[in-house]
C-alpha cells in the first residue's frame, strides 16, 4: 500500500492529534474531575452533593474515554513514549489508576445505602478521585520540562535512575500540579454554574472568581519560573525528520531559555500562552455577567491555551532525559511506523467527528439544570 503522506507530516499530524486528545480530555473530563474536587466544599448537605454528582452523572463515563483514547493513541502512535512515561512514573500512574477506579464505583455505590457515614466516605473518595489525577498530570508535565532521569540501551530498553515518586514531587513539578488542579477545579465550578441553581450555583460562582484569578497567576508564574530557573533542551545533531524511530541516534544539549525558542522562531505560536491567560479572564468576565455558556467556552479556551503552551514549548521534545539527554524522546524519533500512523489517522478522521456528533446529541438530550426537585423523580444517583 502506498501511503499518501510522508513520515515527517504524519509525525507532526500525530503530535497535533495527541494535543487534541489531551485537550479534549482536559476540557471534557476536566470538569468531572473539577466537580469531584469541589464536592466537599461547594456542597454542604447530602442533597446538594447529589445535585453535583447528578450534574455529571450521565456524562462522565463518555468523557473519561478521552483519557482512555489519549492513552491508547500514545500507545499506538508514540510507543516509546508510552513505554517510558508510564513505567517511569510508575507509582504516580498507580495512584491515578486507583483514584480513577473510585469514580464509577463511587457514583454507583454511594446512593445505594442511606447511611450518612457511608455517603461521607464516598464523598471523600470522590474528592480524591478529582484531586489525584489533576495534580499528578500537572506534576508529570512539570517534570517533562526538567527532564526525567532515564537512559536507553542499544536494544532500546529503558532504564531509570531513581525514578521514585518523591523525585517527581520536586518544587516545579508540584507547582505545575497546583496549576493543573486550580485550572480543572475552576472548570468544574464553571460547569456547575451551567447545570445547577440556587446555593450550589452561587458557591460555584465564587469558586470560578477565585479559581480563574489563581489559574492566571499560577500560569504566569510558571512561565517566569521556566524562563529564569529551568534550562531547555535542543537537538544539536542534524534533525532527520523522516528517519527511523530510534531515539539513540542524535545528540542533545541543555541550554537556558531554550523552552522559549519556538516562540522566537514562530511568533504566531504566542497565541497559545495568550489564550491561556485570556481564557480564564473571559470566564471571569462572563460569570460576572451571568452568561454560563460563554463562561464555559472561556474556561475551555483557557485550558486549550495552557496545554497547547506546554506542548509548543517542548516541541519537538516529548520526554527529555535529564541523565542522558541524547536519548530524549522527540517527535522525530519516538513515533510508530509510517503505516501505523497512517492507518490510525484514517481511523481518527473517520470516527472522531462521529464521536463528537453523538456526544453533542447526548448532551442536547440531557440539557437543562439539575435541581433539588428533579432528584425526587426518575433515575438518579
Amino acid at each position, binding site marked *: 500500500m502506498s501511503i499518501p503522506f510522508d513520515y515527517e507530516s504524519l509525525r507532526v499530524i500525530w503530535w497535533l492529534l495527541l494535543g487534541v486528545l489531551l485537550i479534549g480530555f482536559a476540557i471534557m473530563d476536566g470538569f468531572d474531575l473539577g466537580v469531584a474536587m469541589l464536592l466537599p466544599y461547594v456542597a454542604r448537605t447530602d442533597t446538594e452533593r447529589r445535585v453535583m454528582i447528578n450534574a455529571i*452523572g*450521565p456524562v*462522565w*463515563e*463518555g468523557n*473519561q*474515554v478521552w*483519557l*482512555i*483514547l489519549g*492513552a*491508547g*493513541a500514545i*500507545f*499506538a*502512535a508514540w*510507543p516509546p513514549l*508510552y*513505554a517510558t512515561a*508510564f*513505567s517511569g512514573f*510508575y*507509582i504516580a*500512574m*498507580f495512584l491515578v*489508576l*486507583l483514584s*480513577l*477506579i473510585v*469514580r*464509577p*464505583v463511587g*457514583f*454507583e*455505590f454511594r446512593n*445505594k445505602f442511606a447511611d450518612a457515614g457511608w455517603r461521607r466516605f464516598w464523598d471523600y473518595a470522590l474528592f480524591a478521585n478529582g484531586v489525584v489525577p489533576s495534580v499528578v498530570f500537572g506534576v508529570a508535565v512539570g517534570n517533562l520540562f526538567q527532564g526525567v532521569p532515564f537512559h536507553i540501551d542499544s*536494544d*532500546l*530498553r*529503558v532504564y*531509570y535512575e531513581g525514578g521514585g515518586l518523591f523525585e517527581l514531587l520536586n518544587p516545579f513539578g508540584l507547582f505545575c500540579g497546583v496549576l493543573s488542579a486550580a485550572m480543572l477545579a475552576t472548570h468544574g465550578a464553571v460547569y456547575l454554574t451551567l447545570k445547577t441553581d440556587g446555593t450550589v450555583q452561587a458557591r460555584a460562582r465564587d469558586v470560578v472568581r477565585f479559581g480563574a484569578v489563581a489559574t492566571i497567576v499560577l500560569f504566569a508564574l510558571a512561565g517566569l519560573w521556566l524562563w529564569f530557573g529551568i534550562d531547555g533542551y535542543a537537538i544539536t545533531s542534524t534533525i532527520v525528520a523522516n528517519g*527511523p524511530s*530510534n531515539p539513540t541516534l542524535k545528540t542533545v544539549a541543555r541550554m537556558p531559555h531554550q523552552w522559549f525558542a519556538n516562540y522566537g522562531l514562530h511568533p504566531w505560536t504566542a497565541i497559545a500562552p495568550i489564550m491561556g491567560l485570556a481564557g480564564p479572564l473571559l470566564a471571569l468576565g462572563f460569570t460576572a455577567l451571568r452568561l454560563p455558556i460563554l463562561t464555559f467556552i472561556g474556561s475551555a479556551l483557557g485550558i486549550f491555551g495552557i496545554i497547547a503552551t506546554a506542548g509548543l514549548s517542548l516541541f519537538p521534545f516529548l520526554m527529555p532525559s535529564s541523565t542522558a539527554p541524547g536519548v530524549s524522546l522527540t517527535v522525530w524519533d519516538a513515533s*510508530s*511506523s509510517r*503505516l*501505523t500512523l497512517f*492507518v*490510525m489517522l484514517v*481511523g*481518527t478522521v473517520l*470516527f472522531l467527528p462521529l*464521536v463528537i456528533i*453523538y*456526544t453533542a446529541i*447526548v448532551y442536547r*438530550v*440531557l440539557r437543562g439544570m439539575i435541581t433539588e426537585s428533579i432528584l425526587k423523580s*426518575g*433515575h438518579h444517583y
Partner: protein
Amino acid sequence: MAEFDPVSLARLQFAATALYHFLFVPLTLGLSFLLAIMESAYVMTGRQIWRDITQFWGMLFGINFAMGVATGITMEFQFGTNWAYYSHYVGDIFGAPLALEGLLAFFLESTFVGLFFFGWERLPKLGHLTVTWLVAIGSNLSALWILIANGWMQNPVGAVFNPDTMRMELTSFWDLIFNPVAQAKFVHTVGAGYVCGSVFVVAISSYYLLSGRYQAFAKRSIIVASAFGLASALCVVILGDESGYTVSENQKMKMAAIESMWETEPAPAGFNLVGIPDKANKTIDYAIKIPWVLGIIGTRSFTEVIPGINELVAHAGERIRSGLIAYDALERYKANRSDSAAKAALTEHVSDLGYALLLKRYVADPRQADAATIAKAAFDTVPGVGVLFWAFRFMVGIGFSMIALFVMVFWDASFRNFSRRWLLWLAVCAFPLPWVAIELGWIVAEYGRQPWAVDGVLPTFLAVSSTSAAQVLFSLAGFVLFYSTLLVIDIILMRKYILMGPVEALGHTLNPNAAPAPAAMPAE
C-alpha cells in the same frame, strides 16, 4: 527469591487484574444484549411489564458495568507501566487495536450508557431502544478490538522486525484485523459472555419462582434468557476457539499441552478424556482415550496430523539455532549499519529471532549458549501441561452442561409452564458456573501462551519494565486489596437488589396485564 522477581510479580499482577476484570466483562456483554432484546419486546408489545423487566435487569447491569469500567482502565495502562519493553517492541501493532477500541467502541458504549439510565423520561420509546442497542453493540465491538489485540499475541501476523527501530512494525493492517485466531476468539469470548448473562437472568428468575414471587416478571425473563443462552452456548462450544489452534507453532503447542500429547499420533489423533499428565516424565498416566476425536475437532479433517509435544520441542530447537544466526546478524548490523551481508542474513532468519531471545533467560549473550542450554530453552516452549489439561476439561465440561441446562429450562418454560422445581433449583445452582468456565478459558489461552508474550516473537521474561520488584509488589498488593474490597461491596450490593426484587427496586407493582403504557413524553 525466585518468587519475588519483577517478572513473576508483573505476571501475577496482570493475571490478577485481568481475572478480576473478566468477572464483570462477560456479564456486561451478555446482559447488554438481553436488555436490548427485552426492551425491543417492550417497544413492540407496548406492555409495561417488559419495561419493568428491562429496568430491573438494567439496574443490576449498572452495578456490574461500573466495576467493569473501573477494572478496565488498569488493563490498558498496565502495558505501559509493567510491560514497557513489550510496549516498545510491539506497540506499533498492538497499540492500534487498543486505540481503535477507544475510538470505535468504548466511546459509543460509554457515551450512551448514561442515556440508558437517565434517558427513560427524556427520550421517546424508539429513541431509548436505539440507545440500548448502541450500548450493546458498543460493548461487543469493544470486545472485538481487544480480541484482535489478544489474537495478535497468539498469532502475530501482518508484522515484521525492523532492525533500525529494534521492534516489530506493522506490514498489513488487514492481516491484523482478519487474523483467524482473533476471529475465533471473538466469537468464543462474546458467546461465553452471552451464556454468562443468560445464566445470571435464568438463575435469579428461578430463585424468584421458587420463592413464589414475581411470576410474570420471572417467567418472561427466563424465556428470553434461556432461548438466547441456548443459542449462545451452542455457538461457544461448536465455534470454540480450538479452531484457531492449528495456525501457529505456539497454538499447536498449546493444543498438544492441553492434550498432554507427547508423541505425534497418526491422524486423526485420539482425545484423552481424563488422565494424569506427568511433565517430568513426558507422559500421561491412566489416560482414557477416545479415538479420532482430537484430530477431527482440532483440524476439521481426518488426514491432517496434530504434532505432539516432543516433535514441537525438537522443532523449537531448530528455530533457536536459526534464530541465533539472526541474532548474530542483528548485533553486527547494530555495530555497523552499512553491513549489508549482516542485514541479508538477518532478513533470511528474522522470523526465528524471537527463539534466540529465549536463551537470554540463561545467558546474557545468546551466542554463548551451549547445546545443553539450547535444549533447555527449547523445552521452555512447553507450557504448564497439568494446568492446561485440567483447566480445559473443566471449561469444556461446564460448556456442555450449560447447553443441557438451557435445553431443559427452555423446554420446561415452553411446554410445561415451569412445573419442575428441581430444574429451577438446578438453574440457581448453575449461577457461578459461567464465571468459572470463563476464567479457566483465559487461563488456558494465556498460561498456554507461555513462555511467550507474543508467540515466537518476544518471550514474556523480556517484556517487562525495568521497574523494581518493590514497586511492582506495592502495586500488586494495592490492586489485590483494593479490587477485593470493591468486589465485596459489589457482591453485597448485587445481593441487596436481587433480594429486594423488582417491585421494591422499581418502586411500583408489576402488572402483566396492564394496557400498553402511554408513550414517554419527549423532552420538549
